[in-house]
């Protein structure tokens, strides 16, 4: 059982790293948002691992549900912002966004 | 006695807040008289303190606020002497302002800050807690920032910022010094610090604050630059309040409080002498009348410091008398400069000359004040200078005393030079007659005070003598006796 938890935890961490890497790698705003989503998937896995470790699935389920709602609202707001950027620039390339360079 | 002193502080400090309100309420004209009234009240309130002070009575009061911060006052002969002199000169200057500042743009602001300034000075004089000493110190700095930049020219504002930054910078280091003193002795109360020896680091930090405020070489550069302010303000800065704060703080902290190590004392004396001499030489080469007077102030401040730093009876008495004599005389000189500037629209002495015929009262007043600064009997300046040099000899500092006399000679030179360039010789520029009666009257009063304080020296001398008696005759001065 402990190994399974470690595996879930590790997989979650891996997803988080990949998500952050996506944020660093890409210049397209939608892809950056995908990166944030991937990070969120990783965090969900870690949630599950923590719940299993404490053997309290009911409790952790409740947290996961809340987290999913947060994630959704965040994604919606992010996408609305992306549409705003697109309205102004006609492009999603962050190189045009002077503040996001680097 | 305590509540009296509190009133002296609070009347100008809180009263000043009414002035901008009056300005907004459309009573622009009333702001000047209001300021005169408030400052005058503050001065009158110091009169009843004179009696008890002469009798050698002291008073203390304290309102604890938070932990070691308390609003505590200390009323003794030194404090009363300073408050009396400063508020007297400030009142005269405020009256003069009525004629001088009339047609400028930000009149209510001017009177507000001047009154606040006087309030800060009174607060500083009576404070017994180092934190409140620092607080009033900074209020005076910010007042001086707004006043130096009063005419709003970009260059003036830059000079105001410079003055603020230098004095604020010195003061925050002084605050750090106070904090170090606190970590050593666990108190901010000046009277509890009496006789305690101050560490080197703390001494350097505190002296940085004092020297920056009192414009001592090498932290003096802001003072000549501050000449861009209205003449009333330069007069206020030089004669009544600002540069005197450093002197007062030194007298309060070290002559009446903490003990300085003998080696440090030698360094301080050398610095003060250097300041007196270098700036006297600088004044000799100056042709801008206000800058000349400013360098002269730096020089006289150095002189006063000499008297304080030698820690002898004559030195201390001389220094306090010097504060008063210099206040009257330099106040008069700057106000004369104000009248001259009004009349000739220039500060450049090479463009003046022959003004004596057009401005006889101003000319005579200028001469009296200049001679007092130069130390010519029977003006008050002579006696104070004599006492300081006597004090130096008393402390065994013969070499420094000799150089101080040399400085006095240089002072006489540049003072006479300035008088000759402005008032004698041929007229070189257009010039109207005297200034307005109020302005000339104030100048004349200051000249009379300069003369009177020489003839009637006994009166201030008695008070100063009491102050010297209350001073802690500390280890250094014992060493040198």
């Amino acid at each position, binding site marked *: 059982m402990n190994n399974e938890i470690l595996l879930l935890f590790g997989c979650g961490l891996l997803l988080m790293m990949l998500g952050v890497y996506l944020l660093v790698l890409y210049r397209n705003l939608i892809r950056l948002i995908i990166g944030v989503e991937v990070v969120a*998937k990783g965090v969900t896995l870690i949630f599950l691992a923590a719940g299993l*470790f404490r053997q*309290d699935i009911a409790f952790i389920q*409740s947290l996961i549900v809340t987290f999913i709602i947060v994630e959704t609202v965040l994604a919606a707001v992010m996408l609305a912002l992306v549409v705003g950027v697109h309205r102004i620039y006609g492009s999603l*390339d962050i190189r045009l966004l002077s503040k996001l360079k680097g | 006695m305590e509540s009296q002193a509190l009133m002296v502080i609070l009347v100008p400090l809180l009263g000043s807040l009414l002035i901008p309100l009056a300005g907004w309420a459309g009573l622009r004209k009333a702001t000047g008289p209001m300021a005169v009234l408030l400052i005058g009240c503050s001065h009158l309130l110091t009169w009843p303190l004179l009696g008890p002070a002469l009798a050698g009575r002291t008073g203390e009061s304290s309102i604890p606020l938070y932990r070691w911060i308390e609003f505590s006052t200390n009323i003794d002969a030194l404090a009363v002497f300073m408050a009396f002199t400063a508020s007297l000169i400030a009142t005269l200057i405020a009256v003069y302002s009525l004629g001088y500042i009339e047609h400028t743009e930000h009149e209510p602001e001017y009177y507000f800050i001047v009154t606040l300034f006087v309030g800060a000075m009174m607060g500083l004089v009576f404070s017994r807690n180092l934190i409140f000493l620092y607080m009033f110190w900074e209020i005076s700095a910010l007042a001086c920032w707004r006043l130096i930049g009063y005419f709003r020219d970009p260059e003036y504002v830059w000079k105001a910022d410079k003055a603020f930054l230098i004095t604020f910078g010195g003061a925050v280091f002084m605050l750090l010094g106070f904090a170090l003193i606190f970590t050593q002795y666990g108190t901010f109360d000046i009277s509890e610090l009496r006789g305690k020896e101050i560490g080197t680091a703390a001494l350097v930090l505190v002296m940085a604050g004092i020297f920056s405020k009192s414009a001592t070489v090498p932290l003096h550069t802001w003072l000549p630059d501050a000449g861009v302010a209205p003449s009333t303000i330069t007069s206020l800065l030089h004669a009544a309040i600002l540069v005197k704060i450093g002197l007062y703080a030194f007298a309060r902290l070290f002559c009446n409080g903490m003990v300085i190590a003998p080696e440090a004392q030698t360094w301080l004396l050398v610095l003060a002498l250097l300041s007196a001499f270098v700036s006297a030489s600088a004044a000799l080469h100056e042709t801008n009348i206000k800058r000349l007077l400013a360098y002269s102030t730096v020089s006289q401040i150095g002189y006063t410091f000499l008297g304080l730093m030698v820690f002898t009876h004559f030195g201390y008495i001389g220094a306090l008398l010097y504060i008063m004599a210099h206040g009257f005389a330099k106040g008069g000189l700057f106000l004369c400069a104000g009248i001259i500037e009004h009349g000739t629209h220039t500060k450049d002495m090479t463009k003046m000359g022959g003004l004596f015929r057009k401005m006889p009262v101003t000319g005579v007043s200028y001469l009296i004040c200049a001679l007092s600064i130069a130390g010519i009997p029977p003006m008050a300046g002579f006696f104070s200078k004599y006492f300081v040099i006597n004090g130096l000899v008393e402390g065994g500092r013969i070499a420094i005393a000799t150089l101080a006399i040399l400085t006095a000679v240089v002072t006489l030179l540049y003072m006479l030079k300035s008088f000759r360039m402005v008032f004698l010789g041929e007229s070189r520029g257009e010039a109207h007659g005297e200034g307005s009666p109020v302005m000339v009257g104030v100048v004349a009063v200051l000249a009379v005070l300069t003369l009177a304080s020489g003839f009637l020296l006994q009166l201030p001398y008695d008070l100063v003598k009491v102050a010297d008696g209350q001073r802690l005759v500390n280890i250094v001065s014992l060493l040198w006796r």
Partner: protein
Amino acid sequence: MLLWVLLGLLVLLTVGACVFRDLLYVAVSLALVSAVLAGILFHYGANIAGVFELSVCAGLITVLFVSTVGMTKDSDQGDETRMGRGFIPLVLLVFIGLDVLILRWLGSALPSIVPGAGSGSFQNVFWNLRSADILGQVVLILAGVFGISALFRLKVKEKKHE
């Protein structure tokens, strides 16, 4: 065994979301990641969380993504990456290595499983123990609604305020 398959699939699909050129494919593979995640949640008996993951993340968010991609289709994609996709396998290997290191440390740091008191049924936890979260969720959704409507409102004409 099933867990290994599911986790492997999860990582594979995530890497897919990293490498696909077409944004639609990316959105779809993200949806599949969510679906697999939901499967894992089901596997451990977290049914309700699984349903949410499946419906909201795999469903709603994907719809949002696809519609955004559609709305911004005309934008030029240009050169998207900073250093090329070729590095991704390498980076993946590095990450896995790092991960293994962390896990080994974690394995030693983690005490063995402590049987928790258990909080009873999901309904009990969600509605009774964590009712503060429900308040939070309600306001959060309000924030989302007002936020999106604010971002999509018509911009007022520039005025001078002098």
